[in-house]
């Protein structure tokens, strides 16, 4: 993650050519790299889904189907055509939002994903927000008190955050805060008797409940959400704090900071108005990377907390040999992942005057 960020920062260095042209060029560059990544992603999922399994037809019809059925499905899947033709058909279907039909739920994979995705979005968003609002002050504090205990605390916390298996932390969290202390609600998004009361508008229960004015349900959802979000947020927190620390250290060693101090500016003003201003731009990339990786990384957390999100959908489909669902989920998460990174790149260019 770090080298992707630094590569991006290098790419966004100062430019000398006229502003609109270079912006256009940069935009075209980003778009072409997005397109290429998309083609690469689909090519790989295509290979995984159609080429690697010993016999994709058997996966659909089962091994006791009569020969006619087999041949029919073989034709229907287009397996008699050349590989590039198959890939092209696959791609055109994808672009139209057709990810095939799930064997497990017998519904279009796209519909399933739209139903499961908001839960993941809710979890990853809250976790990222926790990471931002706790991680940035921690990182700044560590940089300001470089070499003293707040600094050591952030470094050690970061190391622990990087080293602990998230699914294990989730289990221990459930054991302590749910089973023993009873501070939070258990697995799932809501208590059973609250299910299906609030109509699903956005799919994000917190928003839906607030829209309906059902505050009891809202707080129940918060109680379910807080533990998985905190655990997922720990990783966002560790990464954001560590990066903020090193960016701030870079800035605080610059001469303009010294100048500001010599001029008698208050320390708070030096840190927040001067040094931190310059860090903000770099942090955008870091936050984008974190958010994207949490969308993906929630797979394990969702399993532990029985959270009905896209990660759980993918793993459950996997055990039912539901390849369409697995690959559909992979593509959706992949597109989000690449999309968020592109978005943070664009935002970076908007915010940083040097990159325009």
């Amino acid at each position, binding site marked *: 993650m770090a080298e992707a960020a630094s590569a991006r920062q290098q790419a966004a260095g100062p430019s000398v050519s006229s502003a609109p042209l270079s912006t256009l060029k940069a935009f075209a560059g980003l778009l072409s790299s997005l397109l290429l990544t998309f083609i*690469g992603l689909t090519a790989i999922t295509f290979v995984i889904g159609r080429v690697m399994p010993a016999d994709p037809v058997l996966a659909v019809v089962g091994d006791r189907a009569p020969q006619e059925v087999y041949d029919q499905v073989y034709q229907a899947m287009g397996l008699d055509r050349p590989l590039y033709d198959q890939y092209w058909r696959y791609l055109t279907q994808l672009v139209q939002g057709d990810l095939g039909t799930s064997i497990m739920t017998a519904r279009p994979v796209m519909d399933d994903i739209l139903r499961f995705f908001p839960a993941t979005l809710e979890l990853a968003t809250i976790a990222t927000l926790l990471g931002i609002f706790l991680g940035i002050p921690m990182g700044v504090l560590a940089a300001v008190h470089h070499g003293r205990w707040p600094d050591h605390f952030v470094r050690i916390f970061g190391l622990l955050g990087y080293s602990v298996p998230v699914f294990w932390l989730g289990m*221990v969290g459930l054991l302590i805060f749910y089973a023993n202390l009873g501070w939070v609600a258990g697995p799932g998004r809501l208590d059973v008797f609250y299910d299906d009361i609030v109509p699903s508008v956005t799919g994000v229960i917190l928003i839906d409940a607030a829209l309906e004015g059902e505050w009891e349900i809202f707080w129940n959802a918060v109680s379910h959400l807080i533990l998985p979000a905190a655990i997922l947020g720990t990783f966002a927190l560790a990464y954001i704090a560590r990066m903020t620390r090193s960016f701030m250290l870079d800035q605080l060693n610059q001469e303009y900071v010294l100048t500001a101090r010599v001029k008698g500016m208050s320390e708070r003003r030096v840190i927040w108005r001067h040094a931190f201003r310059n860090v903000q731009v770099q942090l955008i990339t870091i936050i984008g990377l974190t958010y994207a990786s949490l969308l993906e990384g929630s797979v394990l957390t969702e399993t532990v907390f029985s959270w009905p999100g896209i990660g759980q959908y993918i793993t459950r489909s996997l055990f039912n040999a539901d390849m369409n669902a697995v690959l559909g989920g992979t593509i959706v*998460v992949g597109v989000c992942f690449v999309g968020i990174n592109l978005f943070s790149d664009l935002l970076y260019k908007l915010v940083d005057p040097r990159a325009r």
Partner: protein
Amino acid sequence: MSVPRAVVEKSKGLRAWLLQDVPDSITQARVQRFYLAWLTFRRNPIAMTGFLIIASLVVMAAFAPLLTATSGLEPQLEDRLQSASAEHWFGTDGLGRDIYDRIVWGSRITLYIVGLVGIIVVPVGLVVGTLAGYVGGAVDTVLMRITDIFLAFPRLILALALVAALGPGLENAVLAIALTTWSPYARIARAEALTIRNSEFIMAAKVQGASTGGILFRHVMPLCISSVIVRLTLDMAGIILTAAGLGFLGLGAQPPTPEWGAMISTGRQYLLDQWWIPTVPGIAIFVVSLGFNLLGDGLRDVLDPKSAE
């Protein structure tokens, strides 16, 4: 890194040979370089902690038969779900197997996973990266585009999809992890190769008529290895966590293999009443990945003093 002269002159024997100002042979110079790096490394308490953790893991894996009473595989139902005691240090699991024994045997699997991923990832990254950096031109563009595509992927999800196609199992999990981790190594190796490409000794080799392949394997790659190794050490923790995650989801090593992630997964049902069954393997994963993180940080500080703050 300099060692006071007085120290050198006082001590005799091996230490003097190791610290001699002007080495007598190439071998001595090489050994000296490692020794000096070790001296710096030893002064770094964080790195030493990591080193000790990983060294104990290796010792544990090597002497597993001596350290355990059972193979940790056979069920002993009369002993099931016991808490920690003098006989069973970490208690027993749902099938009465000693958890301590399973942890010790599991260290072999952990080392096997990281070793195998390293053996696949480092050569692939080196070849792709040095080829792109050294040859340049269209080769560079194509190879780096492919690398970028792999870099942009969500890793765990891709590994999941791969395991779905290949079928669950330890080897397939390793393959999936390797396929999703090689790309940063290619980037690092390329950056190194770009700077090496224009150095004079490469010119000399070219003038002497060395082939491109010969130059790549004999001159460029050996110089890229150290930064790739540092990166690998830093990545080890991530590899262990991903492998454990796949094991936890039931996609990695299959029971009764004492893989730590799979042990957590099967122990999950006992969480509320026999909390130690899923907790102990988690601590083992945590300690080992912490060890690799500490070691990696320390190695980076030793080999690249600039990055140490």
